[in-house]
């Protein structure tokens, strides 16, 4: 049975993203929800939501990616988030040569793309410094939402956090609050810390042609993007759909899988 649409499901450590693409690669549906405790339950919920939106799993080809990819029993295939973020970024940014910086909930990836395919990558998933988790924890400590922290950071300066470790950095932030430091300055230090960690990681994969692009959950924070651009010495692009790059890439893999299967028949 020929399918009219392809489904990409990116179950990340923090959020699950779902994208449905038409055969000519237009976005038909985009879903976002917290991953929560159980990837299996989340996968089931996504199946239900897809059905309700008029895209039942049975009539499409689905690829799962992300941390929870093995928990999607109805997926036709599992592909790693590295390949999916790479493909998704190429599609979103319309380019075949890119360096992708994906700042996720619990890990940060730098992915090098040549000719539309992944040629190299570097992952930091052993330490939460430089990830969304770091931002979330510090925002909590300042009793604001992450978006607000990034807005405040733009108005701050002059303070830095010395700890590499998230746990010790949190202690530092508490001390700074305790001694009356301006919240904007503390916010500045938090973003600065993330930018330093990420740019150091990206620096190890320097020298590629093409643009540097953001994907992942921190795409929507202009100050962070600007800081990263300053640290790397080049313009870091972002896009609204950047956080869906993994799911878009997974849907594109599903499309390729479906074409391959049709060709084999």
């Amino acid at each position: 049975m020929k399918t009219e649409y392809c489904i990409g499901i990116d179950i990340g450590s923090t959020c699950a993203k779902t994208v449905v693409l038409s055969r000519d690669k237009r976005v038909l549906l985009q879903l976002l929800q917290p991953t929560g405790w159980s990837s299996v339950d989340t996968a089931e919920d996504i199946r239900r939501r897809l059905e309700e939106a008029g895209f039942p799993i049975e009539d499409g080809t689905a690829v799962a990616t992300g941390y929870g990819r093995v928990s999607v029993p109805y997926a036709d295939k599992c592909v790693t988030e590295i390949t999916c973020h790479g493909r998704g970024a190429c599609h979103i940014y319309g380019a075949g040569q890119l360096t992708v910086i994906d700042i996720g909930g619990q890990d940060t990836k730098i992915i090098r793309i040549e000719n539309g395919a992944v040629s190299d990558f570097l992952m930091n998933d052993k330490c939460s410094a430089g990830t969304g988790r770091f931002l979330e924890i510090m925002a909590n400590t300042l009793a604001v939402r992450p978006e607000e922290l990034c807005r405040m950071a733009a108005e701050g300066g002059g303070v830095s956090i010395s700890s590499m470790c998230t746990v010790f950095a949190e202690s530092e932030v508490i001390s700074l609050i305790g001694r009356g430091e301006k919240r904007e300055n503390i916010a500045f230090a938090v973003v600065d810390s993330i930018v330093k960690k990420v740019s150091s990681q990206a620096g190890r994969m320097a020298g590629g042609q093409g643009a540097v692009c953001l994907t992942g959950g921190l795409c929507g924070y202009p100050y962070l993007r600007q800081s990263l651009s300053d640290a790397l010495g080049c313009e870091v692009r972002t896009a609204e759909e950047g956080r869906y790059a993994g799911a878009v890439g997974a849907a594109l893999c599903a499309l390729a899988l479906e074409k391959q299967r049709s060709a084999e028949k």
Partner: protein
Amino acid sequence: MSDYVSMWKDLGMDLESHDLLCQVLPTAVGDVFLTQENRPKGMDFWDLVISEVHGIRPKELIEEQKKGRKVFGTFCVYVPDEVILAANGIVTGLCGGSQFWVPGGEAVLPKSTCPLIKASVGARLGRTCPFFRIADMYVGETTCDGKKKAYEILGEDVPMYIMDVPQMKREKDILKWKDEIAAFARKVEEFTGNAITVEKLNEAIRIVNEKRKALARVYNCRKAACLPISGRDALLMMQISFFDDPVRCAQMCNKLADELEQRIAGGVSVVPAGTKRILVTGTPLAVPNWKLHNIIETSGGAVVCEEMCTGTRYFENLVDETQTTLEGQFMALSQRYMKTNCACFTPNTGRIDDILRMVREYQVDGVIDCSLKFCCLYDTEKYGVSRALKEAGVPVLSLETDYADTDAEQLRTRIGAFIELLNG
């Protein structure tokens, strides 16, 4: 429990703790090896050995000790087995490959020590491995810093002899290693009470060369486009060859090679056509360390070669069998062993040459350079290895891991992405 339990008791082992290890090993073996289809019939031998890993061979060693033979435990492929065999001694490789033994090592060693060293120390001090209890003397070496200092602690619990491995490979270092081998020979003679003669040493050299050739034959079969044996099975064979009787080892490996050659002729492959061929390089994979191979081979890859001590470095290069004096033989041994390209030496560009050569010989699609945590030597060499492979257009993935299970998902993501990259 009968036979083996009384043997373990007599060896002074901690039976309760040892039993915990006995509980997890069968599951690991089942998961890694018995999930495979169409394994070579010859693997029966190594399946038997691993099923009875703390039974059959330890029992054989004890029987030999009753006849007056001495057992030497070694930790490095630089230590010449031939010298020990020439004095009617027995060699058993002792490197620990299990997380089970690591906490025992961490009681006396810094946490930031390589897990192989921690496991080796833990296996001895925790009294949970019969091989560690049986060996009459341990032979250590001045290779890496971690081992050098760990041997001091281990040496308080068991007779220990340290060989001074050179840091470089100049003419004078090869001469120095020859002298170290000669001194070791004297020690072995004294400890065993047997004189090492030219004839006995030549015979020993011949036996070990035969074992090397047999292992090489099996590896040669992995060069074929039609892959007759999995990386997991080849690794098991390699790991067991470190402590099996050398004559039997050569016999069983030759038998396996015969079967593999037939498989290649008959087009029998253990993986589907198009499976990406991976060369694994780096720090050794001591038994029962199967994590990396299992993850690679259950993620769409096939391991066709290991460039490491538990791999090509163990059997490449033969010792000259034509020497007629002990002096000449010691020199021949030194010349052969000093060709081993370990990161303990500087420079070590020979390793990069080896890797590039093997990429061609084994028709490799991608290289995984994996080192154990806290191994500064191999971790630093990743830079040079990566650069050379990139220049040669060979995809490479650098990894670091330890013996724990906790990073399996992270490894699966990286290795999975690497194989997806190879598949284009």
